[in-house]
């Protein structure tokens, strides 16, 4: 054999034979399950097209999508999935070929790296669509893993959303608590006031006393008239006039005490009590209104937060693959053939270029 033929055999035919044997006979089939989902919020679609062109970080669905991307490739998710579906056992399947299966007793990092190779997650910035592909040795396993990842991602999105709502509500919640406390305080005061003065409603009490005074005064006027009338034909010391006088005096005394009760100098007159009471009822009304306003503010905050928050919508559920699409045997063989030829060609050209300098 000539030297050129040996080289050809060694550097092209042999590597190609290895590649052909591996992809033709040895490589085990893998099934790809695919799902597509996007993160949507109530205001606007999931697209951030315009902003992404300007090159600003949009901070909208884009950021959340990157969070999902990172999460799907994290070892935390892998640990959850492994616990749920015993991934290790599946990927360590001894029937699978040496290069595509996970080796026995892998370290945490190896397992993560291996899993990252089996899972591809792509985010299209313009359409806001996330595309998830999972490879596994059986169609069912691929679909299950894909479904589990989807569920876990949804959980994550929900957790993020709840956290965001919680954050924006905590302020108004504190506001409501304060208003409630104030209202309770004032109610207490009002109760105390009523118990201390043995009254239900000082304003009504004052009205009652005023009515009484007016009644008494009316009676006094009537008696005075009667007295004047009697005097015109009776002597001053006649028994009727004396009786009327005594009655009148008693009435006037009563009027003076009632008036004193109503608006005297003391602290516990009915009028001052009514003023205090009115102050308290006013405060009570205020506190009530404040509570209502705080509650409305919280409701508005909740609506705002929820309209801003994102939720995950899977519009293509994980597929159950029918045909093993991995490895792409023809493609792999073609690419390796081109690569081997390229490297061989380049190598021999370089060697030839160097050899031109021989003999000096």
């Amino acid at each position, binding site marked *: 054999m000539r030297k050129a033929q040996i080289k050809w055999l060694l550097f092209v035919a042999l590597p190609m034979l290895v590649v052909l044997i591996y992809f033709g006979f040895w490589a085990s089939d893998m099934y790809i399950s695919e799902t597509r989902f996007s993160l949507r919020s109530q205001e606007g679609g999931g697209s951030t097209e315009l902003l992404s*062109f300007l090159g600003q970080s949009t901070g909208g669905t884009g950021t959340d999508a990157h969070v999902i991307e990172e999460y799907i490739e994290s070892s935390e998710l892998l640990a959850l999935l492994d616990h749920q579906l015993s991934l290790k056992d599946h990927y360590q399947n001894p029937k699978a070929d040496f290069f595509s299966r996970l080796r026995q007793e892998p370290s945490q990092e190896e397992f993560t790296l291996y899993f990252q190779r089996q899972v591809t997650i792509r985010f299209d910035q*313009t359409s806001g669509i996330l595309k998830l592909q999972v490879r596994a040795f059986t169609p069912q396993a691929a679909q299950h893993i894909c479904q589990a990842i989807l569920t876990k991602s949804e959980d994550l999105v929900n957790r993020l959303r709840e956290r965001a709502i919680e954050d924006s509500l905590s302020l108004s919640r504190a506001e409501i608590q304060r208003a409630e406390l104030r209202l309770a305080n004032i109610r207490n005061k009002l109760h105390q006031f009523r118990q201390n003065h043995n009254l239900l409603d000082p304003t009504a009490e004052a009205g009652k006393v005023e009515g009484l005074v007016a009644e008494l005064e009316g009676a006094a006027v009537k008696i005075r008239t009667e007295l004047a009338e009697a005097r015109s034909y009776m002597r001053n010391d006649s028994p009727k006039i004396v009786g009327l006088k005594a009655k009148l005096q008693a009435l006037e005394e009563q009027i003076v005490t009632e008036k004193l009760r109503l608006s005297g100098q003391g602290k516990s007159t009915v009028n001052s009590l009514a003023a205090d009471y009115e102050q308290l009822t006013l405060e009570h009304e205020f506190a009530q209104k404040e509570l209502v306003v705080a509650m409305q503010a919280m409701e508005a905050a909740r609506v705002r937060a929820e309209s801003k928050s994102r939720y995950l919508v899977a519009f293509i559920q994980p597929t159950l693959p029918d045909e093993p699409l991995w490895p792409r045997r023809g493609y792999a063989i073609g690419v390796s053939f081109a690569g081997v030829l*390229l490297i061989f060609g*380049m190598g021999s050209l370089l060697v030839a270029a160097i050899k031109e300098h021989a003999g*000096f």
Partner: protein
Amino acid sequence: MITGMDNTFQHAFKVQQRVIWALMLRESKTLFGKHKLGYLWAVIQAAFQISVFWVIREVAGVQAPHGMSTPVFLLGGFVPWFIFSNGITNGMNAINGNRALLTYPQVSPLDLLMARTLLQGAMQTLVLVVLLIASCAMGQEVSIETPHVILAALLLALILGLGGGMICSAFNLIWPATEQLVPMLLRILFFTSGLFFSMVDLPASVQGILSLNPLTHVIEMMRQGFVSGYGEQFISVIYAFSFSLSILTIGLLLERYARRYLDRLI
């Protein structure tokens, strides 16, 4: 027999090394020897171009992405570009400029090309180091997180420049109008390779088209070397690598093919 073959190969390799080294020394003299400032001119040229775009970006108020400082971002774009474009323009004229040297039987046309490209690569790496130190001294944030990625990007730019230079010099021998055409093509590449903008900021449709240009990958790789995690979704090392190797192989082939035209010229 095999040891004998190896000996001739080793010997040939040593001869070529010496030839290229000598050519590089000669080339550096002709390139910078006539100026007083010498090598400094390469630094000044690069610094000038970069500062022009720095000012433009500063005026437009565009922040370099991913927490990079603007001069580092621009250096990541311009240094691979200079290596590539100087590799092509210098390589294209290497044979015409040094035709007399080809009368020495030790010197092959490829040596002329390689000497020039390697010299350019070394120069631009020097420029990179000097300007990085300068921007560090100016208070800009300079971090080199994965040096091997930077080295790989520089190497890929060098291979692309060398391969492109070989192809262009071959075409130049066959069809002299190439010399007029290549600067135009280079101008297009200058604006589409992401020297002064980031691929990551572009919409997916434009990204898809521009990602066919291997230089964009090399440039983004360079930036990734400065700030790891940058442009991860865009960069395809395999694409850049296989494209560069293909270019080099095609260049080597064309160079052989074009020799018959060279013989005619001599």
